[in-house]
């Protein structure tokens, strides 16, 4: 293993670069451009117990320095993913983090139970930004007791390490992170997209409400990583607006064990391999033996 290798929840990843869920399709789509084995691990599109068709268009809208999306969690369902797409990762021996969601506690639990233990599965990444249908559509992730309860329920349903992916739309993200940790989460992904809307002034309407992503989100994500690293003793995966090596370094220095690249791939599909190569060069130039030497260095 090289200088970019990191330990994540008992597994060694050859580098700490992953995609953010839903920004690299089912993985196979990137293969015409670069070998998916370049990355440390692949994060699945958000999977649910049953398939979801998603929203009508428009689903995406550009903003200055970012974009808004409302895909509506379209996915083939967890069973189909494992029968049709997972063999692609098995052939390549690429570690996988399985992102999943539900619209009720029962759906989270039954989805988590369907995900098999496998050497290549690093963790389950639990999307906590979903609306809870039984609680009038309030997101699971906005309230500390609710986060504690849902994480605990899923924790009891599976033996696979569990990562909670948190929404930034909360009063105090450290409090939410603590609730996830105390509920049994083994790690945190910080952060999901930020709720946002766009207005079309020409047509005087609001074409799209959805999640804001892209470089506009980076400082918000960095603060979440920085604050949670100080307080919560579990690994953090940082994500939000990472466009280049400089951004990636900032997340590691703030305390991220690994990072996820999302919207940047749409702007430049080679962002991930470029960041991996760039981090290797940076470590050499800075006489740094390992990326772990700078993890959380801003807190020293």
């Amino acid at each position, binding site marked *: 293993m090289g200088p970019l290798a990191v330990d994540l929840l008992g597994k060694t990843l050859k580098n700490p670069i992953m995609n953010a869920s839903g920004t690299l399709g089912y993985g196979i789509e990137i293969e015409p451009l670069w070998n998916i084995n370049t990355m440390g691990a692949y994060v699945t599109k958000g999977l649910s117990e049953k398939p979801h068709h998603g929203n009508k268009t428009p689903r995406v809208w550009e903003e200055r320095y970012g974009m808004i999306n409302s895909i509506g969690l379209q996915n083939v369902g967890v069973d189909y993913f494992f029968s049709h797409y997972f063999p692609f990762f098995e052939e390549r021996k690429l570690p996988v983090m399985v992102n999943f969601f539900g619209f009720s506690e029962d759906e989270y639990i039954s989805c988590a139970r369907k995900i098999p233990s496998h050497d290549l599965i690093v963790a389950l990444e639990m999307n906590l930004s979903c609306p809870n249908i039984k609680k009038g559509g309030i997101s699971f992730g906005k309230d500390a007791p609710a986060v504690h309860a849902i994480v605990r329920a899923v924790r009891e349903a599976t033996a696979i390490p569990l990562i909670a992916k948190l929404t930034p739309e909360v009063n105090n993200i450290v409090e939410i992170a603590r609730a996830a940790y105390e509920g049994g989460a083994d790690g945190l992904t910080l952060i999901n997209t930020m709720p946002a809307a766009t207005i079309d002034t020409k047509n005087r309407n609001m074409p799209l409400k959805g999640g804001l992503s892209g470089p506009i989100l980076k400082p918000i994500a960095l603060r979440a990583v920085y604050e949670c690293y100080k307080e919560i003793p579990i690994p953090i995966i940082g994500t939000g607006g990472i466009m280049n090596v400089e951004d990636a370094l900032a997340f590691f220095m703030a305390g991220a064990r690994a990072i996820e690249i999302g919207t940047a791939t749409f*702007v430049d599909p080679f962002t991930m391999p470029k960041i991996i190569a760039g981090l290797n060069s940076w470590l050499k130039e800075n006489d740094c033996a390992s990326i772990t030497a700078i993890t959380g260095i801003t807190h020293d």
Partner: protein
Amino acid sequence: MMDDIPGKIVENSSIISGYHRLTIRLERPLGNVTPGQFVMLKVPDHEIFLRRPFSIYDARLTTLTIMYRVVGKGTEALSRAQKKAPVMVLGPLGHGFTIPDKGACLVIAGGIGVAGVRMLLKNLGKKATLFVGMNGKSELSLLSELKDVEVMAATLDGSHGFHGNVISMFSEHFASYRMKDPRIFACGPQGMIVSLKRFLEPEKVPCQVSIEERMACGMGLCFGCVAETKDKINPFKRVCKEGPVFSLWDLSL
């Protein structure tokens, strides 16, 4: 094979007001293009964040040509781009037209939709008849580079050819092709596609349509650009990956 290729703008000129022709010199040749495929172009402007999809108007070795209409901030910024400005071109992308080996090829284009069928017309040569709809006579200059193609034009203002929309004109002519095993290809605004479907519905003539949608990645990663199809299990297909060319009869319009 898909590639992300650096290039420079060689020419970016206005054809008529609101329509432009962009020529790019690429550092490497674009892979083999199937008519109906597109590229994702990084517009040389700091305010434009995502790439924009454009039909391939022409591609010869390292020269790529795009014809576009200014419709939003991306194309507006592109229309201001100067010669020598650097761009990135990802492509060729998507599922293009399937070229039939028999039958009469009837190609329908509405407005800038003509850019989306240019490669197809080149490929079909004399086998094709083009039915084109424009707002007025001046827009017919978008057709100046089409050679060897029989063109039937309709204008909404009646300034040239048939007075009315292209589907009305097409429906008047279609009878004479009915016995010639017609194959239809179309690219144009949603309203045109819907009218065409309504007209062809009783006979379900083979018809491939190229459709448009807002895109983020252009290569099937984000599921941002979907079209609703009649597939019951998985109705939303990606326009950038399973499209942009679909069978008209698979779409829910």
